[in-house]
Structure formats: structure tokens, C-alpha cells
């Protein structure tokens, strides 16, 4: 009989991994001159970002007419990009909050960069509803501010208003959650910093973290509370975004399955984006032993599950389109958006990217292959953009009155603003990689010793040699014993 609990595969690989190695590796970028690769990427990203900002200024200065929208198509790329970015901004909080509540230790290796991605993505997402307004300078009117105009008030019926609330709440909670997590790590950087400016900056940012037990205890509590707060937000944000469509009467938008479908889609796209970024980052920063194939595989499994939900949602929509017998719905699903309409190319792109493409992940060989994962994740990112494009543009282009049917053609400003946000996002992300502890190093250290396989196979001599602190013959027999109880600082 097997008396021991099954030994888990270690979350951190390598025999020679020590706390100081983790610290050194994670903080390598901060403590060294930027690499050539970083400089090249940063240059490209800055140029793109400036180009995007230029496009936005031109847009705001001249008018929404510089986009390709028309009377029938009140929204197109603007809201497509908005929903796309919001969707991307979903994975981070899910990883850090939901997985924290479920005590999934593997999250620790990826939560920091994923959360950073979330913050920047939501920031980019917020740009679009802002600049898509005809009068951006009046944007503050969407807030229920007290005013001297008497009963002038916002319209609480409007899902767009709830969008504002949902996204700003999500943004602020995610930001706080992320920053709280950063504090101990900033302190580590501070402690190791030798340059005075650097030391000053990081000591300001670390809020005087001392690392005493009380601080750690409070840290844990706050993390838990914030995780509790953030978890419902993960579900509310995209549900509310989906209501922009679901509560309208546009055939193809007006659909009750949108909230869960959108949330699943968001997690789907968010994880794909995490994969895309992480696969590059771990390679470039030589952190393969912390962000392991195991992590990649876990995230691929999440992609399979959420991708499955999205796939079912597609089928449901078509079924309902047929089942209701409403000719407008039927037309949208049977013709306009589907196989034969003018947007058939977008529809088939979506089916390939989001329906067929993630199905390859069912094969273990593929989902543990880094190259395959990278390609599939990239295609999913594209597919999710097409999904939003399909919903918004196809449905609007052919709604009730055939006399108003039209097509959408993007202009260079449409393209410029979209590319620009990718540029701005990249700038933020590259700055994050350079100046922030990319991984939650103090948290990662807690799982360093959770894998007992090595210890189990170790002779007592070896063990004593490795850990001379232990005077007595303690031999770890079970990996669960020391897993949760180690609190170690460098």
C-alpha cells in the first residue's frame, strides 16, 4: 500500500535553485543595464505609441468622421477594440484572485505579469469608450456628479453607464491588488539597491515595508480580502460589457446568453494573451525554471475549458436564431454574419481561430509544446478580436430596415488608434519588465521547497550538507508538511 501522498511535480524546477538565485534572477533586469533586445523593442513600442497618440489627437481634433463609421454603423473598431482589450484584461485578476481563493499555488509564478497585463489592458480598453465619444471634453458627464442644473442626472438604465462603473471599479481594485502584492518585492529591491536614486524611489514605492511577521500577516489578510472583492468583479465586468449588446434590440446583439458567454470569452482571450506574453518573457528573462511547461499546460487547460464554453455559446446562438423564428434573427445568423454574407470572411476567421484552433490543445503533446502553444495563443488573440468585430459590425450592418444596410470600411485613423494602443500597452509592459519585479519573488519563494521529491531521494548526509541549520535528523517524508508553513525571507 502506498502510504504517502502522491508526490507532486515540483513547481520550480532545477536542483540548484536557491532563494538568492530567485532574487537575483527576478531582479536581474532592474539591477542591470537594459539589454539590446529591450532597447529595440522599446524603440518600436514608443514609436507606435506616439503614432497612436497622434492619431487620437487628430481624431479628437477633427471629429469621429475620421473613422470609417457611418449612420448605420455607430460603433465598429472602437468598441471592438474596447471589448477586446477588456477581455484581455480578464486573466490577470482571475489568476491572482480566483486562483488565490482556490489555493492554486502555481498561480504565484505568473500572477504578477498577468496582473500587470490586466492593468495595462484595462487602461487601453478605457481609452476607446473615451475617444469614441463625439465630445470627449464632456466625458465627465457620464459620472453622476452633483451639479447646479437641477435634476440633470445620468441615465441609470443605460448599460453604458454601468460600463463606466464596472470598468472603473475593476480597474481600481485590480490596481490596488497588484500594488499591494508589489510592496514586499519593492522592499527587496530597495534593500539591495546601491544607487541612491534607485534606493529612494523603491523605498518610496515600498511604503516602508519592514518584512516583520505582523506585516506579512496583514499582507496575507489584505490579499485575501482583495481577492474576495476582485473575484465577483471578474464576472461582473464582462457581464456588464456584454449588456451593452444584450439589452439592445439589434438582432444578433439582443441575446440573453451574452453575459456568461462574454465572461468565458474574456477568460479565454485573457489566458491566450498571458501565454503570448509569458512565453516571450520567460525566454528573454531566463525564468524557465519558475514559469515551467507545467504552468503553460495549466493555462492551456483553462483555454480549452473556456474555449469550449465559447464554442457552445456560438452553437446556442445559431440554434436560437433558428428556433425563435424571428426573421431578423434568422437572417443575421443564417445569412448576414454567417457563411454567405459580405462578412463571411470575418465569420470564418472567427470559426477557425476560436473554434477549430483551440481544439488542438486537447492533445497533450501540443499543449505542452511551447511553439505550438505560442502559435495557438496568438491565433486565439486574433480570433477574439474577430469575435467582437463579428458581433458589432456584422449585426449592425444588416439590421431591421434593409434600406439602411451598409458596410464598414476602416480608415487609417481606425487602424492607427488600434495599433497605437498596442504600442502604448507595449511601452507600459516593457517598462514594467525593466523596473518592476516581474515575478512575485517573495511569494515564489514560498513554493520553492514544496516539491519534496528531491528531499525524499536525498540521503541524510546530503540533506545536512544542504541545510546545515538542521542539527537533528529531520528527514522530510511528506511533501505536505513543509509546503505551507515556510515563511522565509532572504
Amino acid at each position, binding site marked *: 500500500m502506498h502510504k504517502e501522498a502522491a508526490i507532486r511535480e515540483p513547481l520550480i524546477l532545477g536542483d540548484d535553485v536557491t532563494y538568492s538565485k530567485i532574487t537575483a534572477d527576478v531582479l536581474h533586469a532592474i539591477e542591470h543595464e537594459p539589454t539590446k533586445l529591450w532597447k529595440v523593442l522599446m524603440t518600436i513600442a514608443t514609436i507606435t505609441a506616439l503614432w497612436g497618440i497622434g492619431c487620437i489627437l487628430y481624431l479628437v481634433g477633427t471629429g469621429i468622421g475620421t473613422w470609417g463609421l457611418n449612420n448605420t454603423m455607430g*460603433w465598429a473598431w472602437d468598441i471592438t477594440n474596447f471589448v477586446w482589450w477588456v477581455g484581455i484584461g480578464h486573466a490577470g485578476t482571475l489568476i491572482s484572485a480566483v486562483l488565490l481563493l482556490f489555493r492554486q499555488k502555481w498561480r504565484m509564478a505568473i500572477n504578477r505579469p498577468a496582473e500587470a497585463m490586466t492593468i495595462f489592458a484595462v487602461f487601453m480598453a478605457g481609452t476607446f469608450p473615451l475617444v469614441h465619444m*463625439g465630445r470627449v471634453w464632456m466625458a465627465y458627464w457620464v459620472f453622476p456628479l452633483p451639479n447646479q442644473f437641477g435634476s440633470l442626472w445620468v441615465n441609470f438604465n443605460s448599460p453604458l453607464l454601468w460600463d463606466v462603473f464596472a470598468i472603473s471599479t475593476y480597474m481600481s481594485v485590480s490596481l490596488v491588488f497588484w500594488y499591494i502584492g508589489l510592496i514586499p518585492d519593492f522592499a527587496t529591491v530597495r534593500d539591495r539597491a546601491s544607487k541612491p536614486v534607485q534606493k529612494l524611489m523603491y523605498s518610496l514605492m515600498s511604503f516602508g515595508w519592514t518584512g516583520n511577521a505582523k506585516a506579512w500577516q496583514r499582507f496575507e489578510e489584505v490579499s485575501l480580502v482583495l481577492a474576495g472583492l476582485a473575484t465577483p468583479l471578474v464576472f461582473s465586468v464582462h457581464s456588464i460589457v456584454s449588456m451593452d449588446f444584450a439589452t*439592445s434590440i439589434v438582432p444578433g446583439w439582443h441575446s440573453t446568453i451574452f453575459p456568461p458567454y462574454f465572461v468565458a470569452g474574456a477568460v479565454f482571450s485573457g489566458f491566450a494573451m498571458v501565454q503570448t506574453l509569458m512565453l516571450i518573457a520567460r525566454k528573454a528573462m531566463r525564468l524557465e525554471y519558475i514559469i515551467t511547461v507545467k504552468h503553460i499546460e495549466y493555462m492551456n487547460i483553462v483555454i480549452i475549458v473556456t474555449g469550449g464554453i465559447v464554442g457552445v455559446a456560438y452553437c446556442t446562438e445559431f440554434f436560437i436564431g433558428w428556433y425563435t423564428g424571428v426573421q431578423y434573427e434568422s437572417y443575421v445568423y443564417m445569412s448576414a454574419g454567417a457563411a454567405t454574407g459580405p462578412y463571411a470572411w470575418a465569420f470564418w476567421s472567427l470559426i477557425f481561430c476560436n473554434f477549430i484552433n483551440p481544439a488542438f490543445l486537447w492533445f497533450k503533446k501540443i499543449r505542452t509544446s511551447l511553439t505550438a502553444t505560442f502559435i495557438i495563443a496568438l491565433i486565439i488573440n486574433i480570433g477574439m478580436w474577430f469575435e467582437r468585430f463579428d458581433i458589432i459590425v456584422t449585426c449592425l450592418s444588416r439590421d431591421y430596415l434593409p434600406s*439602411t444596410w451598409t458596410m464598414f470600411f476602416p480608415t487609417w485613423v481606425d487602424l492607427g488608434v488600434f495599433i497605437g494602443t498596442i504600442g502604448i500597452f507595449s511601452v507600459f509592459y516593457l517598462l514594467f519588465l525593466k523596473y518592476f519585479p516581474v515575478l512575485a519573488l517573495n511569494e515564489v519563494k514560498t513554493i520553492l521547497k514544496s516539491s519534496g521529491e528531491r528531499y525524499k531521494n536525498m540521503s541524510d548526509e546530503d540533506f545536512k550538507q544542504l541545510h546545515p541549520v538542521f542539527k537533528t535528523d529531520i528527514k522530510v517524508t511528506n511533501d505536505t508538511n513543509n509546503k505551507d508553513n515556510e515563511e522565509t525571507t532572504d
Partner: protein
Amino acid sequence: MANSKKYWKGIEQLKETAAFQDSSNKEFSEQLPIEEFLGDENSLGDAGTTRRDFLKYLGFGLAAASLAACETPVTKAIPYLNKPEEITPGIANYYATTFYDGLDYCPILVKTREGRPIFIKGNVESSLTKGEINARVNSSVLSLYDNTRLKSPMINGEEATWVSIDNRLGKELKSAKNIKVLANTIISPSTKSIIGKLLNDDLINQTVSNNFIQYDSISYSGMLDANLESFNKRAIPTYNLDKAKSIVSVGADFLAGWLDSLQYNVGYASGRNPEKEWMSKHFQFEANMSLTGTNADVRIPVKPSEYGSIIGSLYNKVAVKVGANKIIVTALNKVHDRRLNEVAEHLLLHKGESVVFCGSNDKSIQLLVNGLNNLLGNYGKTIDIEKTSYVRQGSDKMFTELVKEMESGSVDALLIYGVDPVFTSGEAFKKALKKVKTSVSFAVKMNETSAECKYVCPDNHFLESWNDALPVDGHYSLAQPTISQLFDTRQAQESMMKWAGVDGSYYQFIKSSWETTIFPQSGSLMFTDFWNKTLHDGVVDVKTPLNRISIVSPFSIDVNSVANNISKQKSTGIELVLYIKEGIGDGLSSDNPILQELPDPVSKITWDNYVTMNPSEMENAGYNVQLGQESPANIISVTANGTSLELPVVSQPGQAKGTIGIALGYGKNVGKMADPTGKNAFPFVLRDQDGNISYTTSALVTDIDGTYPIAITQMQHTVMGRDSIIRETTLDVFKDGDKSDFNPSHTLIGHKDGKSVNVITKEFNIWGKDQPVEKIGHRWGMSIDLNTCTGCGACVTACNIENNIAIIGKDEMRRGRSMHWLRIDRYYASEYQDAGDIAGTLEKTKEAEDVGTTFGYKHMEDPADNPLVVHQPMMCQHCNHAGCETVCPVAATTHSNEGLNMMTYNRCIGTRYCANNCAYKVRRFNWYNYTAYKKFSEFNPSQDDLGRMVLNPDVVVRSRGVMEKCSMCVQSIQAAKLQAKIAGKPVEDGDVDCACSSVCGSGAIVFGDLNDTKSKVRAGMENDRAYRVIEEKGQEPNIFYQTKVRNLASSKTTKNHGHS
């Protein structure tokens, strides 16, 4: 007791010492050392500025400088020094006057605000037009404020004064032996008599003068000559279409620009009411799909070369039945022949109650038409040759002779008034004009002809002019100025009076000639009363017309020899049919951007002319049939009559195969635009040696590489079987069936006891059935009759002008950003849509093509080869449960308690969510700052100080980034409510009118209070034919449409799948 108490602040006050009294009178208790401080330069100089003071001054300086830098917009408002008696700022005045430009005669009512004409609508007092007006007439108000108008007289292209003009020209005219006046048809008796005085010729009592040449830019010479031969009277008869039960038109677009189309519209509309005892049946044979053709019950595409044989065959078929002799005609193909039997049968059934029109300018064909109408006994009943219309009197022959005479050099002086012959008749005239020593143009705006003239004596705009008119025997109307002249112009008549040596003003001249000629016929007692009343009403009908030439000889033409002439005519190759558009007309006023932006009622294309071609022929030739924003038209070269033009080719369902159509009137520069809009197709007009004009000719079409972007406002042409958008039925079903047959309630599938049942959609209402608010007070709404709406577009331009809608130009129109608050949707039937049965289209498509739903939908998108057509005016539906209102985050669009869906421009931040959630897509977004952005400066009148004068001061000009839409002319509603309040009575039906309904002479659009049980609009709402568009969405619109009824047999009863 209260008096005994005294409060005091201190002992000083209690005792009221002198020191206290002294100090209490001062503002400050102590003397402030201001004088000392400012007076003493040393102390002032020593007073150092502290750091805090410095910051204060800096802050103040910065704030002051930045405040000063913010320029306050300069708004110019000049008050009256002496307020004119009739003007109250903010209150509109209306003046009755008359529009006539050689194409349309229209008595109008001009709305002026603070002395500026801003809106034109039809004059309901007129017994001829009864308030009917068209787009060309109502948008002519903009041409008054055209900054490119001639602003002073010119000699040889250089600015001159009127004195020098009068001196030089007076001398030249005195010495000239051969003076000619070339003008459009003159219906003004006073103008005619002044021209007569100038030419020393009595024009009033003499029908033909060799020196006075009337020239219609669109010729009706053939018809006039045929009538001269038939009845010894060269005139156009009047048609009583309200009595015509059977209307047959062969190539005559009588609802849009053909002859007195405004008057025909009125009569036609009254015969199209299915609720009346009878409804007229309208057959249309034509090559192009004309606006009239789209309204026909039966439309048969034929080549123009077949017009003669169609009339001939019809004549024979009728002749056989009435016992007259048959004539020899070229045989028609069997399909046409079979259809003609049907037509002949219907005509015979309604002998004396029918009308046959023909649009041909061929005298022989028109003679045959007269013969046919004579056989049918229509003269004296539906056609009145005794009471004639004077709106067309031009003669092709006389014009040709004039050109010959000019070429020979014998014309000393030529005065050109109201026409642009270089534009409309081409190079020959231009060459001949060079040989005329003294050429004078009275153009309002520089045109092709005035550019060639020695003297340009700019005429006043008609809104700055006095005039009179005799359009039809017994009907007179007056024109009065509604604004004093804007530029240094002089009315042409006054110029001519001066040169002819007639004293006084033209106004006095009209008045005195009316006193001697028209007043005696009127039966009034006092001339002043008669004059004032006529001036007030704008029109007057007299009992005993003076001008009637009662000797009309009976019809006695040898139709056989006429038919022989016709049968000799042969055509080869592709036949080109030149036509005029409802908005553009003959092109003399096509430089009006509002008209250019008005989509063609049939093709829905703006800002261009093009070649129309049958879609199947285009597909065979490999041309692009489906136009769109990024799907441009192919360019082809059309050669005819010795000239060729490169034009885009556009598919026109219903175009007769083997024919192409090109619209005349294009090729003028609009506003300050560098390039002309469209191309001038007048050179294609065919002239034979005698000067007879034909608007059809054979043409050669060749491919040209390249494409041309087209601004089309409607890309999808069929209604896709959606019978909750368009409802139509056939007359037999409407007469025999009940409401559930022709206008059934919309149902959806629901469940009851485990079974699926059809439930009326109203049952699904989530808002609760009782909406008590909707029954209290006013509830403004509209009723739109699809049966009487001809799709002319007058409502669109009227709405544009009333509501200051921006002109956005071709490129923006192409991008689908039309700003029209009111548009007219035009749907063609697909091949499988039967008359009166839209709902069954998908099933029929699937059956006929044996395809599933998906491909069935695909097939439904193609219009039929010769489709049935329906026009649907579409504007904000003012839904009681509006989709737009619930989604606006800032509550910028809200519902009034009078049923209006309101738009608060100031509150709008431009998320465009409302537009997305509008099922009717009637919301319009300000994509740019149209009144300032450079893209629009060439043609947007609002970017010009003068052009802005046409703006309605009651309606704000919307800024960039806000949403706008139809407000049901809320400014008029408010005005009417105020007026009623002052009068102390409730608002009554007819007190308020929207711009669109006020110009809809056919009465298709009715506006009013739905809660007023006696109102017309309420009757429209309660009518059996009434339905609401997309009713099943439960948005409860306040706009009701009435089912279209086609005078056809139902396909369900006859089982005839083909349709006409």
C-alpha cells in the same frame, strides 16, 4: 411695548455722540491712507513687492491674460432703428408669390423671418396646385443667398454700372435694326407686353412674333405642333387626372417634371385613394425607370423606338371595338401585344374617363396619341383642350431659324432671358452668338451663355422681384418681392422698360395693366380690394378668361398617314433615353447643393449623373452591379449624335433591355467647387434639319478602363420579405377582404398548454398595456399613406431647409453619412415577391430556387428584372417605448409628455449608442464640424455669411460630435401652442404642420395630434390600412403608415406567379 426697547452696540451709539454720527456715515471707520500712498511717489517706489504679492500679481496676470486670450465669439446683431410695422422679431411673416422658371409653375408661400425668406411651401389657395410643391421649387430659397450670384452688371466681362450699361446699350439698341428676344416660355402677361414694347410688337394678342423666340430647355414642340394640327391651337391641354380611371403613359414622366407635373400630381393623388369608390389604374410603358413608372400599377419596359407602335397598336385595338378604321403599325412582339390587350380593355372600360400620355417629342406620335384620346372620347372630359396651359410654348423650329439668322450675321441685338442655350443646345449656338453685335444676358448667375454675352444685366432673384403669371386659362397669380435686393441687380423687366422708354417701375406697370385687363374679368367692385386680395392670396381665378381662343376645331387628322410616318422610323443599336431628374430638372438651377444632395427618387444616387442600364445586361458585360462605399461603378463611354461622354454605369432594375438612360441637367459647378458636378448630356439631344428635337437616340457604348465612386444612399434594394416594414395589398383583396386579409396583426409563436400558438405581438408588451399618459394632452404623430406617396422628395428638401440640416457633399454621402432627418426608402420587389404578398417571399424563393433558408435570403437580395416599387418616407418614429432613450448614458434623448422623442443637443456626448439601438436608423451624427471644417467649405452654404442667412433662427445649428434627428418640427409645435395660448383656445387640427407634411401636396404625410379624436392624423391611425413599422418590437411608434394598395388582381386568386 415694542417701542420701549432699544438695542445699542456701544455707549457712543446710546448717547449718539457727534463722533459716532460722524463715523457711522463713513464707509470705513478710519481714514484709509490711499491718497498719501499713491500721492507720494517715494513711498510708492519704496513699497517693495513681497514674494506673496509677486505670486498674487503673477497669478492675476496669468488669469487676466488667459481670459483676454479667449476670444469671445462675435455675434452680430443689428437692431432696427425704426422697426418696420410688419416685422416683429421672432415672428414669421408669410408672403404669397409665384415661382416660374420655365420648367415649373408653382404658386408659393414664402416664410420670412426678420425680413429674410427662409422657407417656401406651396400655396393651398391655388386651385391648380392646391399646395403641391416639389424639391426644385422649395429649395430655390437657397439660391437667393448664393454668394456666386452676379453682384453687378458687366460689359465684356468687366464690372460696370447700370448707368453706363443704359447709355451704351440704349444707343446700340436704338441703332439696331434686328432685335431678337430669346426667352423661356413667358407666362407673365406683363413681361410679354414689355418685351412687345421693346420689340415694337404686340405679343399679347398675336400668337407668333418672329422677333420673340420662346425656347424651352426641354422641348415640347412636337406635342404643341400636333395640337396645332389637331385642334388649330398650339397649346397644351389641361388634364383632369382626378377624373381619370385609366391612365396610360407611354414614356411620359408626368409626375416628375413632364409638363405641369405639379398639377398632375394633385389630380393623380386624388384618384389613388383606395377608400374611395374607385381607384385609378395606371399603366406605364417606358424605357427608363422613371418616378412615374415606380408608381404605376402596371409597368412595361419598352424601347423608345416602340413608342409609336405601342400607341398605334393600342389605337387599333380600341378602334376595332369602337368601330373606327384600323391603321398600319409595325408589329410588336407577342408579350407586349398580350399586355396591350389588357390595357386596351381597361381603356375601353373607361371611355371618357381615361387619359393617354406620351412623352415623345415626335409630332407624328403625338398626333396619334390625340387620335387615340379622341377615339376614347377623352376630350372635353378628362382632357380639356379649351382650357389650355401656357407653361410650354417654345418652338424648336423658331429656335433653329434664330440660330441660322444669327449665323448669317443679320441679328444685331439678342436679349437672352431665363435660358442658358449654350448649355442646353450646345456649340452651334455659341458660335452663332459670337456673330451677334449686341448680346445681352439677364442671368441671375453667371452661366455658359452669359459668359459669351457682351452685356450681362443681372436679373433679380425671383424672391426679389415683382411679376405676374397666367399659367392656365383663367388662373392668374402674382409674384411679389420678399426681400429687398441683395446685390446691385435690376429686374430684367425694369431694364427692358428703361430701354423701351417705358416710364415707371415694373410694379406700377403690372398694377396698371391688371387694372385694365384682369380686373374687369374678376367681377370685383373695387380694384384696390381686388389687387390687395390677389396680392395677399397670390392667386386669383377669373370667370371669363380673356385669352381663350374658343375656336377649337374638332379632331380631323388622317391618322393613317401619320401612322405611316411612324412606321418608317427605325432604330439601330442601343437606344439612349435622355431624361430629367426630379431634383435636378433641366439643370438651370442644379447648382443648388440641397438638390444635389437629394438622392434621386429612383436610383438613390446623389451628386452625379450616370448611365442607367439593365442589371442583367450589365452582368453580361461584366460591370459592377452592386454599388457601395468601396464598390465603385465602371466607366463606359457613350457615343451618340457625334459626341461622346465618359460616364459611370449604374444598374437600374426595370430599365428596358437594349436601352440606356442619362440624366440631363448636370455639368454645372456647385458653390465654389472647382469641378463641375456630373456631365452635361445636352449634346446628346438629337436635332434634325428642321430643328425637331428628340430625346432618344441610338448610341454606341464602349468600355473604358477605370472606376468611378458613386454616392448612393441605399445599397440594398429589396425589402427581404419583411412585411412589417412594407405592407401592400391588391385592390381586390382590399375591397373584398377584411383587415386580417390585407393588414393582419403581427403574431409571434408562443406556447399555451404545451402547444405552440400564434400570439399577437401586442400581448408580449412588457411595459404594461395601459399607458395613461399617452391619452392625456397632446400626442403628436404622423400618418403616412404609402399609396399616395410618389417618392418625389419634396419633403426631404423641405426638412433640410426648415431644420438647418448640413450639406455634407459627395464624399461623405458615399460614406453613408447622409444628414437627412427624413429620407425616402425605395424598395424593389425581388423576383419572388408577388404583388400584395411580401411575407411569402422567402418561402417562394426557397420553392422556386430549391435552396435552403440561407441561400433563399441571398436570392431575395436581388431585385426583379422589372420590379414593383414602393416608396417609404422614413424619419424618427417617435417611439413611445424608444430604444434610443433607454441606452443613452447621459439622458440626452428623452420622451416628452406629448409623445415626442426629444434630443437635447447640449447634453449629448456622442456615444452613438442611441443610433445603434434605433431600429429605423434615423439618427444622424455630426461626424465633423460641418459649418467650419475645410472639407465642406466649397459647397456648404453655412460656411458663408450670405449662405447662413437661409438658416432657420428657431432651430440651432448642431455642433460636432452630437446626435441629431427628426424633432417633428418641435419649433412649429411650440409656436402653435403659444399662439393658441394667446388666443385662449386649444390647439386645433391644422394649426401645426411639419415641414414635410406642409409641402406634401398629395397629402401622403399628415401631421397632427393623435389624441384629438377629430384630427386627420387620428383618422389615419384608425384607418384599416394603418400599421406601424416593425410593430412586433413593441416600440409603439407615433408614426402610422398606410398599407399600399396596388390596382392589380391578387396573385393568390389568379395563381399567376408572374407580375407586372
